[in-house]
């Protein structure tokens, strides 16, 4: 199956100033609303690509902004438009390009979640009325995103022997990466002892297992592969393969989460993306994993074939997931320490690693970077490369 292999490439990436904006938000200011962050990122992305707005004929916006309004703000009348999360925006752009409905698609995201005090748990939780689990589980006090992952990790730990200290490898490795990333919010290195001493939020998960909440914007320019070579200022980063598989049955009562750890979705998605790209986990120089919570990483490392099933605790501790170890994961610091842009900043980090632009945190001779996410059983995977 060739599918979307090599159909499109990323030619431009842009992010807002997470560090500067976060300092202003914490001081009580409001640098931008979600549209404003999106606009900053978009301008940086077309500048990075070396193209003009007129080269763009597709627009896909993230879930936290309004499609029509972003098109109006940025002055884009596209031949293809839509709204998706980060990973599906990349895939939809490839599909639009493959089908001839667009040739150069801007993917644009902005989120003022911190300054707008968006809640991800409790009675005001974003989307609470739509997520059935919140409705059904509230009378027993089970109403936060983190608690769902805590429940999942407790059982995983009991079955596999991946301990809390093993899990701490994730927060420590990603903080090390962030310490080498001038664009990251949390740059002070931590140790495993710091991790173990950090307070529980919902045990067995500690404070350092939780992602940040901050404002920001991200944009990517995805372009048809031949056109990309003609118009881009930098060498395009190819999208070699994509995959998706969702587990919806029994979702509210947490069956795919607690009984299967979403493994069947990851395995189906892995087969799709590796077959399409013609490469496998052994070919990857770095991995980016959606990390609203740290435990996404061990689940994904097993599910996508980076270590043997049941062996991830030892793998993380002995072979290592930090920069300079066996398999660098979330090389910019991820959602835990870089910025919580709901998967968008992971795409940018993947592109920059393949370009070799990452300075002190650059993975040597980085040819392939694998992104994957399994948010609530929706397994999505993308392989970027030279």
């Amino acid at each position, binding site marked *: 199956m060739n599918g979307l292999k090599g159909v499109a490439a990323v030619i431009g990436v842009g992010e807002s100033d997470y560090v500067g904006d976060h300092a202003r938000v914490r001081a009580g200011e409001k640098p931008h609303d979600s549209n404003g962050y999106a606009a900053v990122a978009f301008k940086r992305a077309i500048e990075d690509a070396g193209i003009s707005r007129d080269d763009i004929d597709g627009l896909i916006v993230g879930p936290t902004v309004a499609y029509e309004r972003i098109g109006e703000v940025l002055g884009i009348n596209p031949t293809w438009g839509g709204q998706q999360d980060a990973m599906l925006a990349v895939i939809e752009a490839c599909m639009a390009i493959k089908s001839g409905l667009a040739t150069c698609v801007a993917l644009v995201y902005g989120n003022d979640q911190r300054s707008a005090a968006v809640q991800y748990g409790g009675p005001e939780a974003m989307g609470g009325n739509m997520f059935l689990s919140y409705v059904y589980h509230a*009378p*027993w*006090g089970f109403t936060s995103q983190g608690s769902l992952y805590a*429940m999942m990790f407790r*059982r995983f730990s*009991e079955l596999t022997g991946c301990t809390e200290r093993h899990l701490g490898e994730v927060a420590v490795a990603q903080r090390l990466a962030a310490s080498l990333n001038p664009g990251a919010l949390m740059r002070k290195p931590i140790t495993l002892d710091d991790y173990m001493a950090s307070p*529980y939020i*919902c045990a067995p998960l500690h404070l350092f297992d939780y992602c940040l909440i901050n404002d920001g914007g991200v944009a990517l320019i995805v372009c048809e592969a031949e056109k990309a070579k003609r118009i881009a200022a930098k060498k395009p980063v190819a999208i070699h393969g994509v995959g998706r598989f969702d587990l919806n049955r029994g979702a509210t*009562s947490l069956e795919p989460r607690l009984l299967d750890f979403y493994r069947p979705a990851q395995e189906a998605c892995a087969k799709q993306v590796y077959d399409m790209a013609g490469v496998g986990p052994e070919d990857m120089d770095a991995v980016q994993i959606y990390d609203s919570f740290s435990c996404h990483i061990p689940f994904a490392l097993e599910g996508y074939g980076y270590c043997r099933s049941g062996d991830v605790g030892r793998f993380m501790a002995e072979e290592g997931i930090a920069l300079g170890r066996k398999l660098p994961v979330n090389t910019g610091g991820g959602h835990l320490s870089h910025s919580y842009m709901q998967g968008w900043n992971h795409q940018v980090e993947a592109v920059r690693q393949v370009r070799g632009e990452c300075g002190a945190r650059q993975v040597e001779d980085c040819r392939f970077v694998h992104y994957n996410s399994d948010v609530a059983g929706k397994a999505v995977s993308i392989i970027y490369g030279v």
Partner: protein
Amino acid sequence: MSAYRKPLPTDDPLMAPFWQNAKARRLSVQSCRDCGDKHFPPGPVCPKCLSEDQEWEPVSGRAALVSWVRFHRAYWDGFVGEVPYDVCLVALEEGPLLVSNFSGPVPDDPKAGTPLEVVFEDVTDTVALPKFRIVA
């Protein structure tokens, strides 16, 4: 009991029989009259065979622990006084999973598979919450 400040079940017509049964000290799940599939939460059709012919069937109340967590932070005002508090996930003998709370004494680190049985706690005049007691 008018001072109860924790979240209560929403007015979901599909769930009404579950709460009526709970008030009568019966734990029940939706069951398909066509294929026999037992599922929770309820749906407008059977998720296995898509039949609309569904009923509520009492279950034994026996269950096994799947996992549990301890909240050290309260996301609802009604839970502030109880932090830290536990939430568990149990597998009913009949198959479906339920989120709930422990009732009664709990060991330091209860393991998956620990046998449990349902108890009901009246929290308002109309609502009884099913919770689970560890079977000695």
